[in-house]
C-alpha cells in the first residue's frame, strides 16, 4: 500500500486494510454501514464487498396460520426487490467515492463470517439497528452473531438518529 500516511519502517500488525466487507441488511440503518465502509475503503485504497442476505421466510406464520403460497411468493419478491434496492444504493455510493466494489449474496447470516475469511477481508462493517443488547440477542440480530463468529475485526456503526443522544 502506498497511501499510508504516518506509517514508519516498523509498521504494527494489521495496519493494512485492503478488503472491506459491508453487510447490507433490510433496514434503513444499513446505509450507515455502507457510508462508513466506503469511507474506510477510500481512506485505505481498499475494495469493498457488499454482502446481503436475501433470506426467504422459511415458514412464514402469521398468528399461527401459514400464509398462502402466493403471499409467500410475494414476500420473497419484495425481499429480493429491497435487497436489489440496497445493493444499488451501496454500489452508487462506492462509484461516487471512486471505490471499487462488488456485491454478492449469502444464504444465511451465519455464512458472513466464513465469507469474510474466504474472501480475505480485513474488516466487516455492519450497522447497529438501535436496539439494546438483550433485544439484539432475542430478535437474532446479526451484530452479536458476527462478533461471536468472525475472526476478523467487526466495525459496528451507529445509524444517525438510531438512538437519542444522552
Amino acid at each position, binding site marked *: 500500500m502506498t497511501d*499510508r*500516511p*504516518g*506509517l*514508519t519502517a*516498523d*509498521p*504494527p*500488525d*494489521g*495496519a*493494512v*486494510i*485492503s*478488503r472491506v466487507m459491508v453487510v447490507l441488511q433490510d433496514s434503513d440503518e444499513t446505509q450507515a454501514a455502507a457510508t*462508513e465502509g466506503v*469511507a*474506510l475503503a*477510500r*481512506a*485505505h485504497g481498499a475494495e469493498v464487498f457488499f454482502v446481503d442476505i436475501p433470506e426467504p421466510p422459511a415458514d412464514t406464520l402469521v398468528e399461527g396460520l401459514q400464509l398462502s403460497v402466493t403471499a409467500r411468493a410475494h414476500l420473497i419478491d419484495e425481499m429480493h426487490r429491497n435487497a436489489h434496492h440496497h445493493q444499488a444504493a451501496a454500489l452508487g455510493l462506492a462509484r461516487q467515492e471512486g471505490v471499487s466494489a462488488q456485491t454478492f449474496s449469502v444464504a444465511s447470516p451465519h455464512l458472513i463470517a466464513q465469507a*469474510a*475469511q474466504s*474472501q*480475505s*477481508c*480485513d*474488516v466487516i462493517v455492519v450497522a*447497529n439497528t438501535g*436496539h*439494546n*443488547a*438483550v433485544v*439484539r*440477542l432475542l430478535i437474532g440480530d446479526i*451484530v*452479536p*452473531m458476527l*462478533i*461471536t463468529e*468472525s*475472526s*476478523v*475485526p*467487526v*466495525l*459496528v*456503526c*451507529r445509524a444517525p438518529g438510531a*438512538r437519542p*443522544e*444522552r
Partner: protein
Amino acid sequence: MFKRILIVVDQRQVSRVAIKQGVAIAAAHGAEALFFHVLPRYTVPVADMPPFVMISPEEFRRDAHAKATKLLTAAALVADKAVVTNKTATGGGEDDAHCIADAARQRRCDLIVAASEGRNALLRLLTGSVIPGLITVSPVPVLVVKESARTGSEARAAVMPKKPRRKAQAAGGAPLRRRGARA
C-alpha cells in the same frame, strides 16, 4: 478519516490485541490514540459472611490507580514505538459502557476500539462484557477485535508458502497409492 481513536485498555490479555489494532489504525490514518481505562468500583462486602481481607476505599483506589498507570504506560509505549501521538485517561462510573461512551463524546473521538474474548453473545451479556453496552450507547462506530484476529492481509501472507507443503503431501501420499494398487 479518523482523527482521534479511543482504545479501551484493561487488564485482560485480549486487551493487547485492541492496543495493537488501534495503534495500527491510528498510524494508518495519522490519528491520535487515546488509551482509556475504566477504574473498578469499590463495592462494600456483603454482610452475611465475614470478609477474608478488608480493604479500605482509599487503599482500593490507590491500588486501582497504580494498576491503571501501569497498563496505560505499557499501551503508550506501543503507540510511541509506532510514532503515534497518544494520550491516556481513566474514568469511572456506575456503568463501564456509559463511561467509555461519555469519554469518547467529551474528547471528540471518532472511533472506539475494544477487544472481545471468544465467548458467545449470551456469555458476553452475563459476564458483564463492555461490548454489548458499548454498541448500544456509543455515539461513534465501535471496532470489536478478537484474540484470534487475523486480518485478510495476514491470512494472505500466511498462505504464501503453501506450494512446498503440497509437494510434501503428494510425496507422502504416493506410497499409499502404490500399496492400494498392489492389493
